[in-house]
């Protein structure tokens, strides 16, 4: 498709009335690959939400978002209030961090954080004073509709809001318009497809109004008139709650669309395809085809930030898994230790085997529960050995192709695995390894129990390292060649200068010689003439 056509399509979509953006044949079309995963989370989502009490300490990592770590703006010993900014976003792709309870900053140092590496990272630790006192808040007063969209977006940025679906990309950055792109649709992602996590479902059931109110603010920021809420068909209660909320607002810009409950529909690329039949360009963003996609929890957080002025200080966390005594969805403030949330849920059962931050399909296992809840923590999943997967009995790949059948990126995982094994990085790129979204579908169906996603993560890192090496080598070569050229140039210059001097000297000598010849000739002529004159006069 050339650019003009693409533009024409966008305009077309933009002018279509709400509801026509999805042609009937495409509704709900689903997407390539994916899995129906067995789940029992809906019961949990229906239980009352609990609020965790403020812990004695909160530990707030400086990196709770995609992009550069925030820069601390408080000092140890300083008293802070809940909602007070304690670290400033460093650049466009970064987010502010706020105190999540009132108290005293006692340390800014390395602490264990939820990260696949298991390494520590810089954090601000606040000792709570138990008062949980809020700082002075600055909501957008009056009707935000009359407010400049840029100012409203600024409020979202100040509040440190990031995508709460798990990718934690700074939201205000996502909402920043680009001159060359016509955004036509906001998509609210209510497709929580992971088999265990139910924090978004719990939110949708109880705070549907806040979600819709937040989405209305985003529509204002984006100056867009269409919002599609994608919700999976196995969440009828959430769907009903959202429909009711839309009705309450009597806002005809909204459309609630049911999609089949296929993992990984929570991935915005897959959801956009399921809703619109369109694919986000391989190396591009949803924005490139005119969509902005936000998680429902992010929309609710935007509503809170704009209408109450409260920054992001808490989120809903699903504490679940067979090894949790009493699973629950908990409103927890950021910085709360994971261990205290588990305690709130009655602790672990005796056969706990592994602890996962995130979902069973994409979350990472951690070795220790002494880590804080961060903005990305949608779930704390404690698994028993029976529930979890074992590394025993890994067999050779029989190329059954089931992995290719379920790969939502239409890759050939078995070929990638083969080339990853032989470290053929060139082939890996030819087989589009960078289009792998690491959803784990291939692992899930592999009869040989091969850790495919892990191989691909490793191979990607290997390629990145190799590329960096290659770049460094290229730079070094460039520097070496540049230096050689400079030396050669200098040598040439010098030679040229010497030659020029010689030439000059030679030329000078030459002129001198010629002058002498002329003078000699002239002298001879004059002498001759003088002689003749003399002769004539004689």
């Amino acid at each position, binding site marked *: 498709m050339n650019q003009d056509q693409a533009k024409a399509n966008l305009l077309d979509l933009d002018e279509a009335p709400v509801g026509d953006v999805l042609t009937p044949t495409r509704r709900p079309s689903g997407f390539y690959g994916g899995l129906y*995963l067995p789940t029992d989370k809906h019961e949990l989502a229906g239980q009352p939400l609990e609020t965790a009490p403020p812990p004695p300490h909160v530990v707030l990592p400086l990196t709770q978002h995609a992009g550069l770590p925030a820069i601390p703006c408080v000092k140890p010993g300083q008293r802070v209030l809940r909602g007070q900014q304690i670290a400033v976003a460093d650049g466009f792709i970064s987010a502010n961090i706020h105190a999540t309870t009132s108290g005293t900053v006692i340390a800014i140092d390395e602490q264990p954080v939820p990260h696949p590496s298991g390494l520590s990272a810089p954090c601000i630790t606040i000792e709570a004073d138990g008062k949980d006192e809020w700082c002075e808040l600055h909501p957008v007063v009056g009707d935000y509709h009359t407010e400049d969209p840029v100012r409203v977006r600024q409020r979202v940025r100040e509040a440190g809001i990031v995508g709460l679906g798990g990718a934690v990309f700074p939201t205000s950055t996502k909402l920043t318009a680009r001159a060359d792109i016509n955004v036509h649709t906001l998509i609210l992602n209510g497709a929580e497809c992971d088999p265990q996590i139910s924090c978004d479902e719990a939110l949708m059931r109880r705070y549907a109004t806040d979600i819709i109110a937040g989405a209305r603010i985003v529509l204002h920021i984006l100056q867009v008139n269409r919002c599609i809420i994608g919700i999976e068909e196995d969440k009828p209660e959430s769907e009903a709650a959202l429909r009711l909320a839309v009705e309450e607002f009597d806002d005809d810009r909204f459309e609630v669309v049911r999609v089949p409950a296929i993992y990984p529909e929570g991935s915005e690329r897959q959801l956009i395809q399921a809703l619109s039949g369109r694919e986000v360009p391989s190396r591009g963003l949803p924005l490139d085809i005119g969509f902005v996609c936000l998680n429902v929890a992010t929309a609710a957080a935007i509503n809170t930030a704009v209408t109450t002025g409260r920054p992001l200080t808490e989120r809903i966390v699903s504490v679940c898994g067979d090894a949790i005594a009493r699973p629950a969805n908990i409103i927890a403030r950021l910085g709360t230790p994971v261990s205290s949330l588990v305690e709130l849920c009655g602790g672990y059962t005796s056969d706990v085997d592994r602890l996962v931050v995130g979902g069973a399909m994409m979350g990472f296992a951690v070795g220790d529960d002494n880590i804080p809840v961060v903005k990305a923590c949608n779930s704390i999943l404690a698994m028993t050995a029976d529930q979890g997967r074992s590394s025993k009995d890994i067999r050779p790949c029989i190329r059954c192709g089931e992995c290719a059948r379920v790969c939502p990126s239409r890759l050939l995982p078995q070929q990638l695995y083969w080339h990853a094994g032989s470290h053929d990085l060139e082939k890996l790129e030819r087989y589009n390894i960078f289009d792998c979204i690491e959803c784990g579908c291939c692992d899930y169906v592999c009869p040989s129990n091969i850790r495919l996603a892990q191989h691909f993560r490793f191979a990607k890192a290997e390629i990145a390292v190799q590329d960096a090496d290659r770049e460094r080598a290229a730079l070094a070569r460039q520097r070496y060649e540049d230096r050689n050229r400079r030396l050669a140039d200098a040598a040439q210059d010098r030679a040229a200068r010497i030659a020029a001097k010689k030439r000059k000297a030679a030329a000078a000598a030459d002129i001198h010689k010629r002058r002498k010849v002329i003078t000699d000739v002239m002298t001879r002529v004059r002498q001759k003439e003088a002689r003749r004159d003399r002769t004539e006069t004689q």
Partner: protein
Amino acid sequence: MKFQVEPAPHIISARPVPQVMREVLYALIPAVVVYTWYFGAGLIVNVAIACAVALASEAAILRLRRRDVRLYLSDYSAVVTAALLAFALPSLTPWYVTVTGTLFAIVFAKHLYGGLGFNPFNPAMAGYVLLLIAFPTEMADLWIAPRGAGDGLSVGQTLAAIFASTPPAAGWDAITSATPLDQVQSDLSRAMTMSEINANPTMHGSIVGAWLWINLAVAAGGIYMLARGIIRWHIPLAVIAGLALMATLFYLADADRNPSPLFHLTTGATMLGAFFIATDPVSAATSLRGRLIYGFGIGVIAYIIRTWAAYPDGIAFAVLIMNVAVPAIDYFTIPKPYGARDD
């Protein structure tokens, strides 16, 4: 509290390789029953010989290769290879022929290339083709008339024929009856027409019928595997489509010189090839589009061999030929990833 750390995903669906292979064996049961009904106990004996040899040779070579014998032997892949090879042999095949074929399949076609998952050729078909070339007489002449056309052999006669190469009391006549494919091919080469061939007693309805029922039983097993998700439809459908398309074209052009598409689909190893042989994932193409091409190629080549080459059935050769083509097919059928279409 310390927890076990492993990479995501943390859950998988439980249908490991051994179960997949076992289900392939279950799927063969109807075919074995029908085949035994028509041709006697020879098949069971052959399967037993082949399985014993396959397991023993696999265990020996795994030890040589210093692999986990228990883990690999328990994947049932050697048993599947043995069963498929035995199923392709005439029911009175002498024991040493079966042993040779199985050894070649397991040791040469499978393990010399690296074992399960690494063999470029379908091991069962490699073994079968070796036997076709090395033992042409045994492979062509030891077909007995199926029950209904002949009297059938007792277990004792079968065992004597297999282990002592003793002809059954009924005489060699009973055991040199050609298969329908063989008959059609040789008669056509003698310029006979299809109607003349069909009048021949060796094309007796019950002989053709036996092969029809065997193929139906194999297909039933195939449908079981499809329903269980052990195999996917692409390869079987493409094999059948390739063969049917060729057969239809030539049948429509000259019905008197070419057997009908139905005849092609219900005789010889058509269904076994489509559902059990070509679907061996290790030696097949990888992408879905690639698998359609791969299967279609097998169907077309099988027709060509059946019609114009020196062998009555072309499935085994067709599979091996397309095995050779797999890397090329794979090269040209890499699917475009999500978001890389159109633009």
